[in-house]
């Protein structure tokens, strides 16, 4: 039987990528390009037995402009990228995003929200979310009968 090895929470992301690929194949680049970028900030997520790790590239975002919250298995990132102010400015290129952003990620398991730690360094945010006790793998001691 066919078995889906992909975590269910990844399915939508995969679908979106698949759609991107389809559109690219039809050479609709001009139309699709501006909307192709996924939400800001881009995330990498991985885990080990004890923790889920979320890393995000957030260049230009100051720690005080970032709000991170975790409830159950949901992590929310909110923040703002500063705009450039000044008069008589002419933009020749504008590839970097500005303004407010929000991203909600569903994590593979519940986490201990009280113990979440986040650090930001050189525009890279790293969040360590300890897994909830019931989500951690447990070693079962086998007794001799």
């Amino acid at each position, binding site marked *: 039987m066919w078995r889906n090895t992909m975590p269910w929470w990844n399915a939508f992301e995969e679908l979106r990528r698949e759609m991107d*690929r389809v559109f690219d194949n039809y050479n609709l680049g001009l139309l699709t390009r501006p909307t192709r*970028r996924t939400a800001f900030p881009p995330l990498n997520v991985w885990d080990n037995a004890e923790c889920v790790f979320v890393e995000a590239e*957030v*260049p230009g975002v100051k720690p005080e402009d970032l709000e991170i919250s975790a409830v159950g298995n949901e992590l929310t990132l909110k923040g703002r990228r500063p705009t450039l102010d000044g008069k008589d400015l002419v*933009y020749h290129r504008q*590839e970097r995003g500005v303004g407010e952003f929000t991203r909600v990620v569903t994590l593979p398991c519940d986490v201990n929200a009280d113990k979440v730690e986040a650090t930001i360094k050189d*525009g890279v945010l790293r969040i360590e979310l300890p897994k909830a006790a019931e989500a951690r793998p447990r070693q079962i001691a086998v007794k001799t009968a």
Partner: protein
Amino acid sequence: MSTESSLQKSEAQIVQPERVRGGPTYVPAVDIVEANDKLMLMADLPGVTRDGLDVQYERGQLTISGRVTPRQDPNTEYLLREYGVGDFYRVFEVGEGIDAQKIEAELSNGVLTLHLPKAQALMPRKIAVKAT
């Protein structure tokens, strides 16, 4: 399942001149803004420290290269992977109208800001009209 092409950062296809260090190289997103007296260039270089940054201006060409130290074990199995980690490299043809001696650079929170003052000869000048 996910391919490299679905990652958000665009990977440089050909990097000239070729580098000694292997691994992927990415093209940083930039804003280029012109003010009355200067050009300003802001580049997103997340993960680049002062030591890893190299900015050069030579014969009208501005080269930005940022070295990024890998942050995870290369064998990490990602649950979600939206970007790759690697060096940044981008070259701009700025032209001769820049006063190279006065270029200033600052790096903060992973964003490089370059101030490129226009050469004096190209600055807009206000012409005073004398009363006769």
